[in-house]
């Protein structure tokens, strides 16, 4: 602290020039070096965020008169969006989609797969065969994760078409993704995202030492109790981190869903924003491509996601106390 005060008054102090230069390099230079990064963050993160909030209070649009002479219109966009039955349906469906496909589907399936992957197989050839199967299953799940979303979306559309995979396997003689868009979205997203949760949980399970399980075993825990009281609390940290990430990803998912079910704006809020921003519909006061209204819708979702994440982080803090 004292040194710091000295430095700020470097002109008055009698410190030799070399010391001053050294101090400059040691203390001031690092701060200067941060500036470009801060500027970039400001330009690409903070500015768009602020701009989207600004825009949502105007009647700015991509085309039409309001593209050039836009003005400040207060909360009209927010009210219009919030009273739109399609937006309400989109929010409800977004939540259902996120909860069922990410929190239940991806996380649960990922956890189950991770536990199975970590299980010790029996000795002999059965064990060897299970090992090979595990490697293949792991690779397949992983492939689902690295396939581009557009490809995945169209693949699922093909699989769920009449005469496609679903017809061959389950005898569904209609276009599944047309009649049940929400279910189709959920299936595709579970398929796609399970690998991430699985990998995360595998790493978390790997970090639990074996002797903890043995202690629990000797203490009298059944396999289920071992999972419930030992495995589960010890990976709950990872579970929450996983929840945060997959919630954010699933909530913001666009490409996969768009390629699968198209611009059906009442099924997902991202599709709603897309339909708005591309100028297919919007409130009376803005021109085609009501970016301002779309920004309002996006900002509402931003606040919702932020609230969710804050909740998760709070839970995470509580959990982490023992670590």
């Amino acid at each position, binding site marked *: 602290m004292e040194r710091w005060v000295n430095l700020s008054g470097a002109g008055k102090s009698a410190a030799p020039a070399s010391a001053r230069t050294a101090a400059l390099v040691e203390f001031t230079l690092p701060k200067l070096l941060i500036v470009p990064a801060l500027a970039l963050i400001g330009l690409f993160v903070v500015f768009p965020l*602020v701009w989207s909030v600004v825009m949502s209070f105007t009647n700015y649009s991509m*085309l*039409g*008169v309001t593209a050039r002479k836009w003005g*400040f219109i207060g909360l009209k966009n927010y009210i219009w969006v919030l009273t739109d039955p399609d937006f309400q349906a989109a929010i409800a469906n977004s939540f259902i989609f996120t909860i069922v496909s990410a929190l239940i589907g991806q996380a649960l399936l990922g956890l189950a797969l991770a536990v199975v992957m970590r299980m010790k197989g029996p000795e002999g050839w059965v064990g060897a065969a299970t090992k090979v199967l595990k490697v293949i299953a792991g690779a397949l799940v992983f492939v689902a994760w690295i396939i581009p979303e557009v490809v995945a979306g*169209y693949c699922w559309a093909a699989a769920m078409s009449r005469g496609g995979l679903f017809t061959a396997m389950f005898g569904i003689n209609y276009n599944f993704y047309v009649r049940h868009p929400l279910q189709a979205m959920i299936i595709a997203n579970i398929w796609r995202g399970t690998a991430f949760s699985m990998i995360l949980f595998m790493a978390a399970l790997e970090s639990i030492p074996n002797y903890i399980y043995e202690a629990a075993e000797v203490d009298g825990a059944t396999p289920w109790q071992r999972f419930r009281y030992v495995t589960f609390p010890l990976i709950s940290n990872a579970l929450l981190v996983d929840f945060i990430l997959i919630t954010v990803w699933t909530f913001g998912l666009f490409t996969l869903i768009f390629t699968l079910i*198209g611009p059906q704006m009442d099924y997902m809020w991202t599709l709603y924003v897309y339909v708005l921003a591309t100028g*297919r519909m919007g409130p*009376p006061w803005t021109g*085609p491509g009501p970016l301002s209204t779309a920004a309002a819708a996006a900002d509402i979702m931003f606040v919702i996601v932020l609230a969710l994440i804050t909740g998760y982080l709070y839970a995470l803090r509580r959990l982490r106390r023992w670590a």
Partner: protein
Amino acid sequence: MPAERGLSIAAIVIAIIAIIIAGIAIGQAMSKPHVLTKTVVTTVVKSAVPVTKTVVKTATATVTKTATMTATVTKTSKPIVLTIEYGEPWKDLVQPAIQKFEAWASSHGYNVQVKQVMLPYGINFMQRISSDFAAGTAGDVVIIDSFMIPAFAKAGYLYPLDNFVKNWPDWQYYPEPMKKIVTWFGHVYGIMIDTDVRMLWYRKDIFKMCGLPVPWQPKSWQDIIKAAEKLKSCAPKIEKALGINEFYPLYFPAGTKWGEATTMQGFYMLLLGAAKPPYNRLYDYKTHKWICKSTALYRSFWFYVYTYKNGLEPVSYNFVSNVWGTMRKVFSEGKVAILVGGSWEWGEGWGPQGIAPLKPCLQKCGCTGGKCTTSSQIQCYTACEAQYIGFAKMPSYNGSRWVTISGGWAIVINDKLANNPEKLQLAWKLITFITSRDNEAQYCAKYGKICPRSDCAEVPIYAKNTYLKEISQFLKFTDFRDALPGYTKVSYAIQQVTGMIAKGEITNAMTALNKYCDLVKRYVGANNVEVLPVQTS
């Protein structure tokens, strides 16, 4: 530790509040100049919207004045750069014209350079052009979708061409509908460069199979429904004969997946014939209001409800990931017998090199790989195609007249040239080269598109194409969309409601009409709609 947690939550809350406050503050600051006075606004956007007579007059004055000046001004040594922005599909229309224009310019002593901005296939032209206009980087001469003219004109992006076309002898060769498409509130903003019409496509082989007359020309909506119902009763026979697993007599596009096509290919074809003009539209040009309810709207929704409810139309084709491809495929396979569609489908859809050529014709003409390549194969295929596929004019509700609707692309001048009379003159000159009879005829014949000029028929290469010649007759009674600002939203309401009908969520024409009216009110504002009396019989 609790202190730390409290701190971070507080930080997040404060950050959000700060962002919102900053947003409001910046918004206020930035919007101020526009709020100041109305006079500022009108001066800023001079040529926008219902332009007052005085403004037009001054504009005219400038133009005429500069016209006389051109000869002297252009002798400068510095070249004038004229930018033209267009999509790749119009390459063969624009490039030969540019050559001729440059030759003309040099022989007349103009030092001018044409810079081309060609937007390649694969990008959404209108999205790109829209953002170019919004950013002020659009070309001096631009080729745009004609239905964007009102929106662009209202935004002040387009320079009115009234004084140019007034003295342009070629203007007379454009049929009235082709003039109307590019006109907005009395001012001409562009010249059509290609167009299309819509009609009923039908399968001659299936009609014969079911004992229906070929050629077929329905006289009213009832004729269409009757034919469809008869075809439905023949479905098992047809499915067996063609080896298909499903069959639908009729297909009018519905739903949001089709986007604008639902409105233009499907709904408008009904609406325009559903009542007498001017009550057969979406917009009332007398009251300047969108029509929320009318007999015509009711009847059009009724047609959708009746045909979809009774299983005459396929539901899921409207929601598959590739609606266009599916539509062409199922018609080619015979899964759909009557289809409302565009004139381009003859070539693009089921032609010898189309997306879904007819299998029996491919076989017959020995075409391999799903395409005919040699000229003899193409000749053979085209003859064969005519045996399988026919087209009929869409009748009005009660058979009093024929109905079709046209779209197409137009060439416009960027309003930023308004203060540069010399460039403006040159831009217009370039347009006249592009839209010249021979250039248009050459291009349209090559691409199988309908030429918007009636005198194209005098050019042998165009006249030779019997199909084009035949459908060019449609231009006499063709109509256009009510593509005013707000049109896309109204169109979207139609897509939503027809989608609900197709899915079976709406099973009554009146419910559909009410839903439509609610949506339109939301989208354009309750003050901007009117309710006309509805006759439900």
